[in-house]
């Protein structure tokens, strides 16, 4: 049974909240696609910019607020933020003119600032993330003026910036989830989920100063990979969604593996800087941390989903199993990936055991949450919404 949101479950915004399965006006359909893909474009540019920036610091070094990789980071959030604002203004305009606004365009409209604006939920989230990025960019500038240009991922403003970017990416996923019954919405989910999957573990750098037995970024990779893989697969209407997401993540990883060092080296040559002395032969940092064997976890998720369908079970029943399987596979293949790609790394058996245990627990938790979050995301727009 397809879940649809109970009436009034999320506060609606006056006449624009009218749920209709009828096709909306052609220009709204165009705006829906343009808005969703422009927000996504911003998140993609942000991801490329961050991977480039991290590689620049590793291999070249010198930094200011205005290196090109930083500009890519800023412009990515700006593009997403401006697109979100435009979509909110369009929805507000439609609401004030009494025109219907399809919930497939960004999700449930919500009232903002006492009803001054009507914001589709997805665009509200992506826009708030972009605005937060701007505010914390100012905090970061102040931080650098006080502490210098520390090229670390785990300073408080940097973590806040990564959180803000992640929120924008969550908004992008929400936007595509609202349009999951449309071909472009499904295509968007298959590409937006891997972007979020790539970015969210970076936030766990916040815990890297703590004396933990395992790198918290690895744990973040395990948890968010399993969580987002399952959510993405469950939102897509046909079997094979997990495979598609894993394939796109693999393609993104392969591209970043080539792009990040290339961009760092090319920019270094352009500004006349050499590479650092004494570099060790490590893989590119950001793509090197992406789970290379996610396809195996995706196959496990598809198998669990197949069992769920063939037994006519509630999808939530086996979600913890899907999560535990995905988490365990990602956790156990991380040491394998490091052994294959990073000659400077070594993972001792105790760490592998801890990773395996954490993979099971975090994976099962991610499965439980994924089932709930999928229901919440499906509530954004009715099953038959089309535009």
């Amino acid at each position: 049974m397809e879940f649809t949101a109970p009436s009034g479950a999320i506060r609606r915004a006056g006449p624009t909240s009218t749920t209709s399965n009828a096709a909306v006006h052609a220009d709204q359909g165009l705006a829906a696609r343009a808005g969703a893909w422009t927000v996504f474009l911003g998140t993609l540019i942000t991801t490329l910019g961050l991977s480039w920036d991290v590689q620049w610091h590793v291999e070249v070094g010198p930094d200011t607020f205005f290196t090109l990789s930083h500009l890519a980071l800023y412009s990515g959030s700006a593009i997403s933020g401006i697109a979100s604002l435009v979509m909110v203004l369009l929805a507000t305009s439609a609401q004030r003119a009494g025109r219907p606004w399809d919930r497939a365009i960004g999700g449930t409209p919500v009232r903002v600032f006492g009803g001054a604006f009507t914001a589709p939920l997805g665009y509200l989230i992506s826009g708030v993330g972009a605005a937060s990025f701007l505010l914390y960019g100012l905090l970061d500038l102040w931080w650098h003026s006080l502490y210098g240009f520390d090229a670390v991922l785990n300073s408080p403003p940097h973590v806040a910036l990564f959180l803000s970017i992640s929120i924008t990416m969550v908004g992008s996923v929400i936007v595509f989830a609202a349009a999951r019954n449309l071909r472009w919405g499904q295509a968007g989910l298959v590409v937006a989920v891997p972007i979020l999957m790539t970015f969210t573990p970076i936030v766990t750098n916040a815990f890297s100063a703590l004396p933990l037995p395992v790198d918290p970024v690895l744990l973040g990779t395990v948890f968010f990979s399993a969580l987002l893989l399952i959510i993405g697969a469950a939102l897509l209407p046909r079997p094979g969604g997990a495979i598609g997401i894993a394939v796109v993540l693999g393609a993104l990883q392969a591209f970043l593996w080539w792009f990040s060092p290339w961009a760092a080296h090319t920019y270094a040559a352009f500004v006349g800087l050499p590479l650092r002395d004494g570099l060790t032969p490590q893989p590119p940092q950001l793509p090197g941390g992406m789970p290379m064997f996610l396809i195996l976890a995706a196959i496990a998720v598809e198998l669990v989903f197949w069992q769920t369908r063939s037994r006519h079970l509630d999808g939530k029943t086996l979600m913890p199993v899907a999560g535990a399987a995905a988490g365990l596979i990602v956790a156990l293949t991380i040491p394998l990936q490091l052994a294959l790609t990073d000659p400077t790394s070594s993972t001792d058996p105790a760490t592998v055991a801890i990773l395996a245990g954490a993979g099971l627990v975090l994976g099962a938790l991610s499965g439980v949450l994924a089932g709930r979050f999928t229901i919440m995301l499906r509530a954004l727009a009715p099953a038959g919404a089309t535009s």
Partner: protein
Amino acid sequence: MNPRPDKTHRPTTRLRQLLVTLAAILTLGIITAGPALAFTPVDIVHAEQVKAGPYTLTVGFSVWPIRAMQSLDFTFAPDGGIAGKSGTLTMDGPGVKPDEHVRPLVRHPRKLEVWGLDVKSLNAPGTYTFTFAIDGPQGHGEGTLTGVQVLDQPGPPLGLSWAVSSLPFVGLVAFLVIAWRRTRPRQHTLTL
């Protein structure tokens, strides 16, 4: 009077010309300013001398006094230059991580004629030592710069910075809680 087609399109054309001009200025600005924007010169404001066997080494600091968490440039300049010489730096102190304890002496990325560390911070206050082991034409030599004092961190307490920076996370969790309570996902079945 009938409107003339060229006048009708003029605003669009002007807008396009304006956008092209702005894009050209921006691109030109980035290209020409690229080298200047990418890095700033190393400005040494304090120096210490270290005798490492037959070698005399000048240790430079771009910030003095040093404060915890405040990144700065360190330069290590042996008399006669770094050509034909190599060595290691061993750092000891309360904020030195195990993987940063010993490192090879490498050129400073923005001052290539000397060795150095770029935008490096020492993350805890206290007393630090820098031990240099140098190999060169005059053989092997070792020397230590002792008693480098790192003062308390500047700015507000770190807990406050983390509290402010965790607000987006708090907001995200609050959003999830509200959405959870309004959709009540536990009460609904999920079809795959």
